[in-house]
């Protein structure tokens, strides 16, 4: 098993694969998407070279990793290859001495009345649709939530031809936080990019309203209008500040939720809801490394730098002679400072709970209304996520709590909220017939 398997071909995973291969070890890079580049394709337009892989990397596209298990001397990774969710996919198990997890993160969405209407989507969805597919999710769109990445979603929407009515930033970051030279962002290469976003938005007259949020969306079979409110420090709506906007789409994002299931299956320790790693990107489990959004969100550059460090460390574990990746480690340190400053500048405040009404679905899949949810929690002693699921139905649906898990854990007052729902036996959907199938095991060199 002298091989590195990298899961996830975003900026982190491709950098890891490239680094490990440069030290002469065998590398297999697995990703569910047909092409490398990751969810947000940061470099698809600019430095296209980043998404291109050297020949030494064996890239398995359209391949979903649905389980990981420890085997003597390493891990076995279970893969299904073929068109997404198609029954014609083929199975395979690959063993590796070193495993790099780079599965990324997705936007966190908070529940609010009407968030289940078509036309309401995440900022990431709006951005990906606009940027990768050239389609704006609506003609008049409001972007709402918290964090600087809302700006890039808004810019992508504008570039795809949408009119962005406003950006509602629930937080109250220090004015100029993004563009100030010096301070938290010094040394962060993406700061210039964000300043450019701000300029584009100013040119298109897109107002950025601080301490404001979309607290309800209305419509019959799709969103037709929203209610926006000013928020107090704790994100409670300020009385008499409500305004109605006619829009046909809303893009929301309240920070990120890492895609933890494989890391949790491998039994990696977590810290503040992200995978804990040391300076070599090693997790608490020998032979398992993690990089990118999975360990904390700080943008594509940080993800790539972490990937480069993880790839080198994985190659070293296999016995390759490795030069210490000093440059990448320096970029990681700078990036982490930025990520920490980001997290601090854009915290979530508990007042969002006051946006909910009795009939607001807190779990989209099982359609569990807030009122029924609260009553179930009050009646039963709900001590952990399993009991919470069974008592309320929330988190039991198709997404297995990926969307609602953290929010319902917070609403129920569970002690551990960040990763309460991360323990899923199957990381990616497989059909029952596929589970029963015998698959070849590739033990590698």
């Amino acid at each position, binding site marked *: 098993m002298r091989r590195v398997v990298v899961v996830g071909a975003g900026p982190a995973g491709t950098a890891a694969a490239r680094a490990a291969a440069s030290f002469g070890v065998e590398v297999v890079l697995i990703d569910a998407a047909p092409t490398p580049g990751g969810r947000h394709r940061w470099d698809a337009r600019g430095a296209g070279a980043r998404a291109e892989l050297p020949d030494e990397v064996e890239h398995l596209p359209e391949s979903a990793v649905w389980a990981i298990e420890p085997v003597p001397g390493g891990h076995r990774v279970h893969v299904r290859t073929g068109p997404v969710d198609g029954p014609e996919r083929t199975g395979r198990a690959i063993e590796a001495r070193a495993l790099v997890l780079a599965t990324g993160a997705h936007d966190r969405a908070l529940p609010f009345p009407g968030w289940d209407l078509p036309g309401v989507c995440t900022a990431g969805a709006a951005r990906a649709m606009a940027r990768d597919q050239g389609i704006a999710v609506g003609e008049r769109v409001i972007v709402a939530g918290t964090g600087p990445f809302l700006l890039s979603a808004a810019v992508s929407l504008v570039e795809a031809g949408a009119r962005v009515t406003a950006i509602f930033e629930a937080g109250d970051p220090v004015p100029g936080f993004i563009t100030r030279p010096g301070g938290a962002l010094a040394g962060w290469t993406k700061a210039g990019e964000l300043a450019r976003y701000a300029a584009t938005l100013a040119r298109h007259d897109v107002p950025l309203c601080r301490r404001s949020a979309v607290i309800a969306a209305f419509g019959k*079979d799709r969103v037709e209008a929203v209610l926006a409110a000013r928020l107090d420090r704790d994100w409670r709506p300020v009385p008499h500040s409500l305004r109605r906007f006619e829009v046909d789409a809303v893009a929301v994002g309240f920070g990120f939720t890492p895609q933890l299931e494989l890391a949790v299956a491998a039994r990696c320790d977590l810290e503040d809801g992200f995978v804990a790693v040391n300076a070599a990107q090693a997790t608490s489990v020998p032979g398992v490394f993690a990089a990118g959004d999975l360990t904390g969100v700080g943008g594509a550059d940080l993800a790539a730098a972490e990937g480069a460090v993880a790839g080198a460390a994985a190659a070293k574990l296999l016995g390759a002679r490795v030069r210490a990746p000093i440059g990448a480690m320096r970029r990681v340190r700078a990036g982490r400072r930025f990520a920490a400053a980001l997290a601090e500048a854009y915290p979530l405040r508990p007042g969002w709970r006051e946006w909910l009404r009795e009939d607001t679905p807190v779990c*989209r899949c099982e359609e569990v209304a807030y009122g029924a949810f609260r009553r179930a929690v009050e009646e039963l002693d709900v001590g952990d996520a399993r009991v919470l699921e069974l008592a309320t139905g929330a988190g039991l649906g198709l997404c297995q709590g990926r969307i609602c898990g953290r929010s319902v854990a917070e609403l129920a007052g569970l002690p551990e909220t960040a990763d309460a729902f991360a323990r899923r036996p199957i990381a990616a959907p497989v059909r029952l017939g596929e589970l029963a199938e015998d698959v070849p095991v590739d033990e590698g060199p």
Partner: protein
Amino acid sequence: MRVRVDGEERIAEEGQTVAAVLLAAGRDSWRTTRFGGRPRGLFCGIGVCFDCLVVVNGVPDVRACLRPVAEGDDIRSQDGAEVPS
């Protein structure tokens, strides 16, 4: 390439996802929920929410936001969800 959306012929481009084809066809929902029969379409856009499930070539529960279209795909709206199947 040619595909069908609920029986109607549409032109799609290489590299488009099924969700993009549906949105470009003016659709904002293509599934109804199991209990409330409520309409659903694109939400997370990256395969985690399972709102965008659709029937492709007779196979239900395909995530439209992740699935690239292929020549001749027959895309149909879905009632409820059938996973796991």
